C-alpha cells in the first residue's frame, strides 16, 4: 500500500517514469553545450600570464581589440533595427488572406536557405565595382566612377539585412496574425482612421513581439563572421568581435584570449537583450485575442 501511495505522491509533483524521456536531451545538452561552455569560460580565466583576468585585461587594454565591440554594435544594431522596421509594414500588409500569399512569403523567406557565403558571392557580383548595379548607374550617367558597396561596412550591412530580414519578417508576421483582426474593426467603428488604428491598437499589441524579434535578429547579426570576412573589410572597418576571437584562438593560438573575447561577446549580447527585454516588460504583454 505505501509503495503505491509514494508513487502517487511523486506523480502529483510531476515525478514519474516519463521523466526518463528527458535523459537523451539532457545528456546532449550537458555534453555538447554546458560542458564546452563552462570549459571555455574556465579557459578564459587561465591565460599564460597576467593572472586570472589577464586575458580580459589584454583585450580591453588594446584599442584595436576593444574597438571590435563598437564595430560589431555599429553593424548589428542598425541592421537589426532596419530588419524589424522593414518587416513591420510588409507583414502588416500581408496579415490578411489573399491570393499568392504563400508564394510571396516563400520569396521573402528564400534568403534564409541561401546561406551567408552564397549571399556574399551574390553581393560581390551585383554590388561590386564591376557589378551590374554600378555598371547600370554608370551607363545611365548617374555616377562617374563605381560606388564602393562591397568590402566595406556596407557590404556586411547588406548581407546582414538580406539574411536577417526573413527571420524578422516571419516572426513579425506570426505575431501580427496573433492579433485579433476584430480589434481593428472595432476601432474603425469607433471612428479611428487607418493610421490611428495602427498606432493605437496594432502597434501597442505588436510591440512586445517587435522587442523579441529585435533581440533575435540582433543576436544573429552580432555574431556575424563569414560576411564580415567575405564582403567586408576584415582588417579595418568590419573587424567584428568574432574575427577578433577567431584571430586570437586560431591564428595566434591564444585560446584563453579567444575564450575571453567570446565571453565578452556573450556579455555584450546579454546586456543589449536585457535592456530590450527590460523595456518590453513595461509594455502590455497579455493576450491579443487572436489565434496565437
Amino acid at each position, binding site marked *: 500500500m505505501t509503495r503505491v501511495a509514494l508513487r502517487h505522491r511523486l506523480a502529483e509533483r510531476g515525478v514519474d517514469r516519463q521523466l526518463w524521456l528527458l535523459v537523451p536531451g539532457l545528456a546532449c545538452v550537458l555534453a555538447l553545450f554546458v560542458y564546452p561552455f563552462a570549459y571555455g569560460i574556465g579557459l578564459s580565466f587561465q591565460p599564460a600570464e597576467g593572472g586570472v583576468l589577464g586575458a580580459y585585461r589584454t583585450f580591453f587594454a588594446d584599442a584595436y581589440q576593444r574597438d571590435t565591440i563598437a564595430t560589431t554594435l555599429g553593424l548589428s544594431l542598425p541592421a537589426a533595427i532596419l530588419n524589424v522596421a522593414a518587416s513591420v509594414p510588409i507583414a502588416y500588409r500581408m496579415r490578411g488572406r489573399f491570393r499568392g500569399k504563400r508564394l510571396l512569403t516563400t520569396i521573402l523567406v528564400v534568403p534564409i536557405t541561401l546561406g551567408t557565403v552564397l549571399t556574399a558571392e551574390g553581393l560581390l557580383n551585383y554590388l561590386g565595382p564591376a557589378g551590374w548595379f554600378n555598371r547600370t548607374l554608370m551607363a545611365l550617367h548617374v555616377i562617374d566612377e563605381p560606388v564602393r558597396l562591397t568590402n566595406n561596412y556596407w557590404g556586411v550591412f547588406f548581407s546582414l539585412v538580406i539574411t536577417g530580414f526573413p527571420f524578422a519578417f516571419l516572426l513579425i508576421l506570426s505575431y501580427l496574425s496573433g492579433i485579433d483582426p476584430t480589434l481593428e474593426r*472595432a476601432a474603425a*467603428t*469607433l471612428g479611428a482612421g487607418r493610421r490611428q488604428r495602427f498606432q493605437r491598437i496594432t502597434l*501597442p499589441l505588436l510591440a512586445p513581439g517587435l522587442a523579441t524579434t529585435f533581440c533575435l535578429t540582433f543576436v544573429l547579426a552580432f555574431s556575424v563572421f563569414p560576411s564580415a570576412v567575405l564582403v567586408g573589410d576584415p582588417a579595418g572597418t568590419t573587424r567584428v568581435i568574432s574575427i577578433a576571437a577567431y584571430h586570437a584562438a586560431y591564428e595566434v593560438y591564444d585560446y584563453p584570449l579567444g575564450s575571453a573575447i567570446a565571453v565578452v561577446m556573450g556579455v555584450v549580447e546579454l546586456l543589449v537583450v536585457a535592456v530590450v527585454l527590460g523595456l518590453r516588460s513595461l509594455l502590455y504583454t497579455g*493576450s491579443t*485575442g487572436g489565434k496565437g
Partner: protein
Amino acid sequence: MTGFDELRLDGVRRRFGARDALAGLSLTIRRGEFIALLGPSGCGKSTALNCLAGLLPLSEGSIWQDGARLDTLPPEKRGFGMVFQSYALFPHLSVRKNIAFGLQMRRLPRDEVRRRTEEAISLVRLEEHAKKLPGQLSGGQQQRVAIARAVVLEPSLVLMDEPLSNLDAKLRLEMRTEIRRLHQTLGLTTVYVTHDQEEALSLADRLVVLRDGRVEQIGTPEDLHERPANRHVADFMGYRNLLPMKVKAVHGPVVAVEGSGLTLEGTPVGQVSPGDDVVAGIRPEDLHQGGDGVPVTVEVVEYQGRELAVEARTPSGVAVHLRAATRPAPGDQITVTAAPSRVLVFPA
C-alpha cells in the same frame, strides 16, 4: 445626438465568390427603433450588419441615411456604434480607456471625454472595475464594457452582433433586460443580430427573419409569433410540429387536412385548395392531450419544471411534440387535439 429620421437599405446584396450571402435586403429603419435580424447561422444576418457598419463593401444596392448615401463611407466615418460577438475589447487598455477611445478619436475636449466616459461607466455599473484590463473581467462585465464603449458616442445607430451568445443562460437573461433598459433610457436606434428567437421577440420592436440571404418576413414580434408568413418562419418561431399533410377539404376559413397518420382542422396561410401538399404547423403548447383526438404513442418524456415535454409518434410513425401537465409513461397510448385556429396550414 447626430440622429437620422430614417435609414434605408435598398436592395443590399453581398456576394462571397459565387454565393449570395445576402440577396437583396431592403429595409427602412426609423429613428429609435429596435430591429432584430433573426435567422439560423449562415442566413446572412451578420453579413447585413457588417455591410451596415461598413466593414464589408456591398456587391450591389445602397444604404441611405435620410438623403445621404452611406454605403460609400468607410466605417470610421459612419458614426455607428458596434458591439461585437467576441466583444473585441482592446486588451491593452483599461476599461476606462476602452470606453474613452471613441471620444478621443473624435478629438473632443479632455473634460468632456472624462465626463462622458464616467457617465458611461456608471450607466453599465462598472465603477469599481474602471481601472482593470479587459482580461481581468468576467464575460458579463466585458459585455457591459463593449456596450458602454459603443453607446458612449451616442451613435445614430447601434449595431449588435449576437452580443449575448458567449454568456451563460442566467447572465444572458440579465443582459437582455439590461440591453432593453438601455434602449428605453437612451432611445438609441438599434440593429440587433441573433439566432435566438426568444431574444429577438423580447427585445425588438420589429423583426427581420432571414434565410439563405433572403428576407422571409418583416414584422412586429406579435406578427411573427402569431402569423408566420411561411413554414420556415414558423419553424423558427417555435412551431416545432411541422407535419407534411394533404388538403382534404376547404370550408371557408378552415381547412381539413390529413396525413402523417393524423386528421386535423386548421387555418390556411396563403392559398390552398383540396389535394394540395401542405405543411401543418403546430406549437407544442397548442397540442393538447385528451379529448377525442388523434391517438399517438408516447416515446420520450422530458421534465421541464411547470410542465412536461412529450415526444410521441403517430400511427404512421411521424414524431409530434406536445406539452403535458401529468406525466405519461413511455409506451402509453394518448390522444391529442389542437384548436383549428392554432393549426397553421402552409403551402408546401
